[in-house]
């Protein structure tokens, strides 16, 4: 098996589906967590590459979705790889993943807003009903509504579920100023999906020991394993 190292920040952002896929697939990896200062030091050496980075047997690869697709080919849950081998099934997964990934884009410029009030006001605009992020979430909610199994696609856990789960939980973490934890409570299929994925045994085990505060909403609301 390849030697894998994931390099990213501590918070559950664009590397979270990668870490989760490896975790639920039972694949060993080195989780290299960087603080902001360490990244500022590393940045010029790898520019224009951004985090997350994946190191595979010594070779550094960038681009979070590309990395995710790769690890989801390696990771199996209940015998099924998280990324389908059938090209059409994979197409449906790729389509939904690209849609979900676009959800973070309106948020990215707000990181650079220095003034807290201004930043919160800008984010509130994004989250209001009909705003770019709320519209994105409502669309994903609508896609989930089409499923009878509760999984996003193909009635089994796929890369698409991991993306939806981690991105929705990131928005609900309460760690993004100006984005309340109950932001998506009005979208019932998103809420049900979060519960469903969090309750999967391998997912529950993965988040069980995570103490970083942003991870609280990733955990199952059912009783802990211990």
């Amino acid at each position, binding site marked *: 098996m390849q030697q894998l190292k994931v390099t990213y920040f501590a918070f559950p952002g664009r590397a979270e589906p990668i870490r989760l896929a490896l975790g639920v697939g039972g694949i060993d990896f080195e989780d290299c967590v960087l603080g902001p200062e360490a990244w500022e030091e590393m940045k010029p050496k790898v520019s224009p590459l951004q985090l997350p980075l994946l190191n*595979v047997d010594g070779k550094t690869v*960038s681009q979070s*979705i590309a*990395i995710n697709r*790769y690890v989801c*080919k390696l990771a199996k849950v209940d015998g099924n790889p998280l990324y389908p081998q059938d090209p059409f099934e994979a*197409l449906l997964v790729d*389509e939904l993943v690209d849609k979900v990934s676009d959800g973070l884009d309106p948020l990215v410029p707000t990181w650079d807003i220095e003034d807290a009030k201004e930043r919160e006001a800008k984010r509130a605009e994004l989250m209001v009903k009909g705003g770019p992020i709320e*519209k994105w979430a409502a669309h994903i909610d609508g896609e989930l509504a089409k499923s009878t199994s509760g999984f996003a696609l193909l009635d089994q856990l796929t890369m698409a579920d991991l993306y939806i789960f981690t991105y929705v939980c990131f928005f609900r973490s309460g760690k993004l100023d100006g984005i309340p934890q109950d932001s998506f409570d009005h979208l019932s299929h998103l809420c049900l999906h979060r519960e469903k994925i969090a309750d999967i045994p391998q997912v529950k085990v993965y988040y069980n020991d995570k103490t970083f505060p942003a991870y609280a909403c990733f955990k199952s609301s059912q009783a802990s394993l211990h």
Partner: protein
Amino acid sequence: MPVLKVIYFPIAGRAEPTRLALKLGGIDFEDSNPNWPEMKPKVAPLQLPLLEVDGKLVSQSIAQTRYACKLAKFEGKPLYPEDPFQALLVDELVDKVGDFFAPLIPTFSIADQKEKEAKRAELTVKGGPCEKWAANIDGVLAKSSSGFAVGDSLTMADLVIFLNINSYRTGMLDGISP
């Protein structure tokens, strides 16, 4: 082989890598230019291009191209590698081309010609948001012994680099000289 229809404007744009992959693979498809103002409300919020596969409409151009490249073989080899690590290298390059192009997108809606060209000049100057990605991709190509972007045969990465970076060397975009 599924019945395929590529639905897009009559320009190269975001559908061209898919069209090219299918052509190279000798795969039949219908090349459809819809009445978009009429179609748009029926498929919202999906955007063009759309790929219809046995009657099912799928959006997201890169997902469509990857699918076409899995079906299409060129000189016996699929345009999208079956080996996961080789596929990772292809996907990484394709996404880098996306990062190259992203800063250009807002410039298409700048009405004032001088302003548009000035903005594009900023992006393509050495070290600028677009140029830095083109330079990085150039560096990847420099390391290739085959001349192909990944491995030793034509892949999705070659098609996307060819169509989405090299096409701008024709001077087709105002403000971006060959």
